[in-house]
């Protein structure tokens, strides 16, 4: 049975239809990519799945349970974690203290959080471990700096670390690569691969297609809130409608 199934999901903002009957499903252990031009409704799709906005119609089935209309924190505690495209860290707190907050939550306490450490042991140490995992230099001052002063690359990692702290079953990344340099991306890709190997199902929204195709076996393309095609990366890129949507022809 599929881990997550989305049926005819529709979202209207007043007159605008941001999502128009999206269907897809994802199996456990899979990595799926979602692509589409800006404003096509990718972030809205995530917001609906994770409960941040209420879908107008449709169903979202996660592990056999309809989660549409549930509160965001409940959905997180079922195991769906997401990153934010617009990063707003807790800027008045040091970077590592940012992770205390997810570690404090019920999910981290129940599952033990990252590598089971959240149940026992010092949250500060776990936070530093986590930051090291996503590529903060542990011996440097960076983990102790105020999150508001960190550059984009570190913020994206911090955002990812926040999700890892929650020990997700399904991780949804909203454009984690955008705004990063080539070398930064190169160091993030293995991290994603490693996560997937450890059993986390991942949905990645991405504009950096080359890197996306390294990790995602299956890709869905949406445009103006409608799914236009789904399949292997090659199939999707060969599709006429995708080219049209991206080139705006």
């Amino acid at each position: 049975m599929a881990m997550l199934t989305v049926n005819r999901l529709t979202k209207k903002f007043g007159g605008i239809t941001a999502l128009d009957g999206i269907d897809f499903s994802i199996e456990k252990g899979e990595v799926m990519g979602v692509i589409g031009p800006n404003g096509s409704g990718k972030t809205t799709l995530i917001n609906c799945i994770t409960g941040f906005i209420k879908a107008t119609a449709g169903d979202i089935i996660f592990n056999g349970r309809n989660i549409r209309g549930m509160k965001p924190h409940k959905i997180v505690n079922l195991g769906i974690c997401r990153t934010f495209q617009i990063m707003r860290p807790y800027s008045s707190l040091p970077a590592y203290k940012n992770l205390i907050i997810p570690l404090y939550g019920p999910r981290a306490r129940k599952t033990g959080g990252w590598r089971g450490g959240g149940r026992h042991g010092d949250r500060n140490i776990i936070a530093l471990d986590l930051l090291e995992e996503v590529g903060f230099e542990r011996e440097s001052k960076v983990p102790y700096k105020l999150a508001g002063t960190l550059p984009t690359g570190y913020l994206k990692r911090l955002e990812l670390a926040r999700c890892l702290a929650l020990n997700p079953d399904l991780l949804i990344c909203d454009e984690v690569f955008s705004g990063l340099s080539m070398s930064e991306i190169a160091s993030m890709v293995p991290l994603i691969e490693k996560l997937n190997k450890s059993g986390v199902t991942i949905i990645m929204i991405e504009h950096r297609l080359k890197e996306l195709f390294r990790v995602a076996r299956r890709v869905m393309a949406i445009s103006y809130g409608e799914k236009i095609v789904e399949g292997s990366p090659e199939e999707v890129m060969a599709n006429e409608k995708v080219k049209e949507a991206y080139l705006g022809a």
Partner: protein
Amino acid sequence: MQTEKRKERIDRGIKIRSDGIYALSSWREITYLIAPRFLLIGGLLAAPLLLHFFPYWQKVLLIICIYALLSMAFDFLANYVGLVCLGGSFFVGVGGYGAALLNKYLLLSPLISIPLAALFGAAFCTLLLLPCLPLRGVYFAIITLMYPLMMTRIIEAFELFGGTNGMMDIQGFGNPWIEQYFLVVATLVFLFALRRLSVEDLGLVIRGIKDNDQSVRASGINITFIKAQAIFYASFLGCFAGAYLAHVYMWAGLSMFALDFSIIPIAATVVGGGGSLLGAVLGAILLVPLSEVLRAFGPLRIVVYSLILTVVIVIKGEGLLNYLSRKYHQFERWVEI
């Protein structure tokens, strides 16, 4: 030839080292760190003794503590949780009536009825504010402005608890020493407990809500529940102050929902400097005696406070405490260019 000079500011070495990690090597450094704390704690504890011969100023000290508690509640909600509460008097009134009821009908003595009133009052306030917790910014401010008014109108309309006359003949403290030390110690305890809370994990979550509530929700935390807890703490302080007042004045009435209890704490926090709780206390210590001086002028007091408040906000003042602590941690010297 004329040499130009400019002022140079340098952080004291100890300040840089002592941000979180303490490695002290001399009495001098230890004194440097604890002197300000000692001044506050020692000062407040000694005050009732020093003021022994000035009974009038003893009352002022009590009012300072009352407003310090209220200012701390406002500061905590505004600068840690991000909820600006314009109706602090709501807490005072609820606490006051609570203590009066406990004392009158259950015949509890002040030392028991005050903590109990604070507890039940805080639970009551939290319950009533629960529907407003999802609101943010302007909406929350407006709605809290309405709560004290709502309470007065309800009490008037239903003639509850003595209606417009209030409840009289509440038991007083009897012993002035207990009366004073009870409040002074409680104020200090609450101050340091709240400051402690703000660096604990729960405190971090609360501050996280102010920075970015969406991200807290995305971390699987029920922000309404956390906010309710924060409201509980703040209203506990407010209700404590109110309950105490009821026993000091031996009366609980509608004027406990009055504007003074809402606006003076805001002024104190803004003047003293928000975001540290200490600033709020400092503001109360500063503004309350001022209000005693102005007592003869009646409504003019509120006018003065409001104007001070407006001016400090408009010139974007950082608050007295932040200014003082900056000066304390820095050398200043003139250097030639």
